[in-house]
């Protein structure tokens, strides 16, 4: 891991990249010194609360706001009509998803509500408590409409429409077909198949959504303090929808307490708060409480998949054929849509394996629920569980061991570059190397022996394996091509300060994952300074250049490469200036540990001295010497459309067949995210991701009744995984750097979530197999396990 990064100069001995360095901001956050939007109080700030629809589908009649307006502390009560005068509607479609449709949305609805919990009226008051008190006084007449609460209801030929103007409730359809699939199935020795259900769940970041909009009418200027992953995306959206020139809109994301994809979508309340600030001419704050988060944060998953695989007698996988139906909300989410997950499901199924044929269909279906959209490991857990369950079934019918059948069928490490039948182009993956490492990491044979011994004593243990491919670091082919103003590039401004320290202002953002740490590590190596003199600043459109920020695991790969290139550029300037001062040739100098050195390592002058002269005594510089100690650099990924990564999970469980409770004994991951900048952070990304995946496997599910009411929308009822139930997670790495960048890093933030639930599903089925029970639904609750066992 400490091998030099290719492309380094002869002097350059990376000292930071590859090392497990702790996060400079961790102590501050641990000490309670974090500065979250919730902590921020601006002068004259007001607070918003929202009246929410109790109905999942209803026409809005008369709205009586008089009592609320008269309530203590109330400054404004605003309806959909009031805010519609200020804000243009938005539509969550992208051009490259041919034929997709979604109705336009406003911050607050003017004609009907389409999910239970939708914000209808805003109340702004001196305190949140007064705003909530007054919100209870708003009277709204509703005329209830038929509720579409599940896929079948919404897909029925005579179904009522979520949007009356549309011919049906289909947001989007897609199909893939490599050709010849039917013939392969017809001649295959075995066909295995299953129907899968993947529960709806949601992100539950520790910090809920929070926003303060501060409109200054005197300058027609808007400042938004926003717990978001993507400040520039929101700068653009607030500017365009409220008609405020972009340069007058500033979005500041201070400390952000987790996001997982939740905090990069347009939410009705957030857009409304901007309008409320414009109407009040005062700062307006809104923090979603946890109950509001459950009915307004994006949800994800909610897929029903029928899948089958054709298998040769020797266990060779031949073809897969899948149908995915996914229920989204009443709208497609803006601006990233609600169809990306389904699209990635059908493209990722089978992706680790050599197949002769692949066919897939996708239906994305409107229903009266809160919108779904991109949440950590978009589509991956579904694709992975479908694929890996079928692979286990193939192993079962052919009598192969689960690791053996995977070793037999994964794309060999020597076969790259290549492409999946669904069209994904792989630069270089390492399934075989990962599989070999996992076998050792798990001590697989010993676990199998122990399993057999314990089974004889009535103890049911299971071992599950899941191989995955992960999509990271998208190029403009992901959103830009569809017309979204979501940047695939990032930018950095890097400067040596007058005292010889380094300041980096970079457009990738930090939500607790350590983006700032790794950016600093990359700069430390490629500029030639210690990490602790580098200050990395993120999350403010007034501070950093424009960039895509943090999503799709792009912080390290794209942000890191941006920092690397900027550091190179700055180093060139520093050495050029130093050469002028020292009457030497730049090529004979290097910057090491913040000192300008000769080829033989002799220190010539400190970086601080170069900076002092540049900033305060430029009069002493020789003619032609350029004191350019600030550089700007932008980088967009080119080459492969995505930097695919890969890995493999193992899950070890013990199932109590009497209670349906599962003890997760241990979880294992071998992953390949390319160049590892910081193994500590990579492993914590993987662990956090695994925990979210195990949450999907055993705990998390947004449950709705037939009336479209969320029945478990609190943290008492919606179970997130907690430390007591989580196992030790052992991790090992294979490092296959991408050659598309000098840094070679790819993404790692979703590797844990991508396959953990699939491995857990396979583990439970491995434990229950001898009892003839089989589960193809997550979460695997005690009720579902006992049902599968016929215990009640």
């Amino acid at each position: 891991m400490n091998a030099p990064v290719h492309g380094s100069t002869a002097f350059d001995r990376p000292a930071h990249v590859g090392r497990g360095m702790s996060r400079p901001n961790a102590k501050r956050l641990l000490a309670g010194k974090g500065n979250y939007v919730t902590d921020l109080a601006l002068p004259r700030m007001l607070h918003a609360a929202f009246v929410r629809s109790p109905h999942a589908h209803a026409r809005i009649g008369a709205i009586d706001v008089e009592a609320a307006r008269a309530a203590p502390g109330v400054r404004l009560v605003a309806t959909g009509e009031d805010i519609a005068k200020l804000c243009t509607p938005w539509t969550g479609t992208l051009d490259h998803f041919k034929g997709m449709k979604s109705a336009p949305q406003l911050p607050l609805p003017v004609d009907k509500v389409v999910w239970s919990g939708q914000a209808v009226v805003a109340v702004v008051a001196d305190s949140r408590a007064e705003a909530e008190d007054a919100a209870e006084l708003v009277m709204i007449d509703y005329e209830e409409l038929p509720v579409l609460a599940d896929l079948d209801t919404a897909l029925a030929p005579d179904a009522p429409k979520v949007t009356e103007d549309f011919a049906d409730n289909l947001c989007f359809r897609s199909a893939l077909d490599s050709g010849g699939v039917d013939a392969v199935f017809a001649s295959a020795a075995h066909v295995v198949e299953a129907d899968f259900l993947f529960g709806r769940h949601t992100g539950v970041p520790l910090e809920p959504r929070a926003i303060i909009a501060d409109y200054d009418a005197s300058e027609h200027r808007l400042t938004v303090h926003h717990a978001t992953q993507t400040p520039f995306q929101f700068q653009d959206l607030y500017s365009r929808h409220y008609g405020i020139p972009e340069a007058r809109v500033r979005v500041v994301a201070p400390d952000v307490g987790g996001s997982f994809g939740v905090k990069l979508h347009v939410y009705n309340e957030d857009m409304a708060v901007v309008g409320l600030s414009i109407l009040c001419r005062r700062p307006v704050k809104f923090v979603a409480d946890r109950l509001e988060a459950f009915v307004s944060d994006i949800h994800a998953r909610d897929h029903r998949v029928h899948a089958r695989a054709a298998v040769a007698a020797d266990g060779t996988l031949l073809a897969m054929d899948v149908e995915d139906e996914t229920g989204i909300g009443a709208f497609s989410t803006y601006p990233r849509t609600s169809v990306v997950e389904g699209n990635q499901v059908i493209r990722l199924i089978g992706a680790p394996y050599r197949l002769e044929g692949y066919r897939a269909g996708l239906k994305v279906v409107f229903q009266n629920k809160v919108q779904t959209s991109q949440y950590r490991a978009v589509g991956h857990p579904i694709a992975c569980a479908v694929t890996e369950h079928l692979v286990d079934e193939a192993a079962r019918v052919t009598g192969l061991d689960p690791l053996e059948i995977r070793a037999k069928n994964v794309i060999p490490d020597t076969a790259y570059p290549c492409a999946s039948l669904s069209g994904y182009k792989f630069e270089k993956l390492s399934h075989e190397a990962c599989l070999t490492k996992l076998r050792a990491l798990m001590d697989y044979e010993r676990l199998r022996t122990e399993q057999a011994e314990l089974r004889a004593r009535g103890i049911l243990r299971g071992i599950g394996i899941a191989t995955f491919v992960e999509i990271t670091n998208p190029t403009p082919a992901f959103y830009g091509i569809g017309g979204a103003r979501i940047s695939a590039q990032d930018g950095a401004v890097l400067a040596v300060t007058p005292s010889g320290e380094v300041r980096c202002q970079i457009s990738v953002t930090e939500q607790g994952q350590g983006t700032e740490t790794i950016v600093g590590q990359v700069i430390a190596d490629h500029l030639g300074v210690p990490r602790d003199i580098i200050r990395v600043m993120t999350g403010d459109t007034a501070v950093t250049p424009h960039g895509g920020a943090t999503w799709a695991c792009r912080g390290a790969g794209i942000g890191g490469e941006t920092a690397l290139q900027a550091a190179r550029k700055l180093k060139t300037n520093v050495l050029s200036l130093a050469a002028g001062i020292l009457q030497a040739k730049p090529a004979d100098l290097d910057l090491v540990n913040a000192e300008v050195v000769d080829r033989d390592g002799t220190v010539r002058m400190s970086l601080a001295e170069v900076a002092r002269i540049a900033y305060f005594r430029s009069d002493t510089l020789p003619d032609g010497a350029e004191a350019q100690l600030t550089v700007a650099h932008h980088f967009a990924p080119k080459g492969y459309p995505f930097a695919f990564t890969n890995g493999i999970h193992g899950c070890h469980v013990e199932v109590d067949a009497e209670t349906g409770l599962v003890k997760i004994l241990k979880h294992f991951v071998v992953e390949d995210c390319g160049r590892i900048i910081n193994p500590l952070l990579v492993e914590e990304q993987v662990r956090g991701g695994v925990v979210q995946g195990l949450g999907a496997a055993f705990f998390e599910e947004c449950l709705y009744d037939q009336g479209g009411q969320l029945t478990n929308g609190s943290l008492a009822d919606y179970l997130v995984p907690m430390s007591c139930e989580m196992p030790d997670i052992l991790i090992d790495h294979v490092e296959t750097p991408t050659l598309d960048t000098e840094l070679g890093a790819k993404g790692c933030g979703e590797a844990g979530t991508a396959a953990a639930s699939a491995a857990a599903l396979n583990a439970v089925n491995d434990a229950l197999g001898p009892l003839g029970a089989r589960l193809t639904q997550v979460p695997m609750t005690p009720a579902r396990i006992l049902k599968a066992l016929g215990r009640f």
Partner: protein
Amino acid sequence: MEEARAAFLAVDGDASYISGGQSLVPALAMRLQAPAVLVDLSGIADLRGVELQGETLRIGALTRHADALTHPLIARHAPLLNAAAPFVAHPAIRNRGTLGGSVSLADPASEFPAMMLAMGAQMEIFGEDGFRRVPADDYFIDLYQTALEPGDILTALYVPSVGPHHRWAFDELARRRGDYAMVGAGILAHMDGALVESARIALFSVGSTPVRAPGAEAALAGRLLDAKTIADAQRALDDDLDPPDDEHIPAAMRRHLARVLLGRLLQRLGETP
């Protein structure tokens, strides 16, 4: 206590007593309750303290959940409370929540109210006519409904001290540690060797109140605690229960889990030295 009652009654019942606040404050935050007045009981000294009075342990209503884990008198004389305490929520909640508050609220999924039944405790209540005591068997009436009248204050829990022939067992089946259980139970049995002379079994999360299991208790009484007796008690338990049918945990599943749990607890009871 008179003053507290007066404050409560002065607003025509639009008031709530507060002690630890671990159920009330979340309910207020969620706007599920909005009393005009909160009457804080935490300053009333008579509601504090744990003391042995002859063969009975008096546990003041303000005694914290955490004390059930650590108080030597509770561990010695009311071991079921001690056994249940680690399952009650999490340390931060146990440090504030009070036993009196829990028994006053009478959440049917809570551990402590059910243990009042299993231990045969009496609730001391201060009301219109001064103090009265209500046996646990008469105290739990319906969902969140107890023998407490508006304005009544639960002042203390009186628990019969366990003797050398008592054995006990507690456990629950929960999806996560500290959560409300899918099913939970506590047993206090009077035994002579392997012979069960009598047993009190109380379950929680199986109905609208914590419930005794008279059928299962009868199946145990006077019997040796062997596999057949356990199976008989498990069978008898079915008639003791009428669990709600909720979509996440169907009634049949709760019955099944209750049977499994009872079997395991009785097994454990038999193994206790």
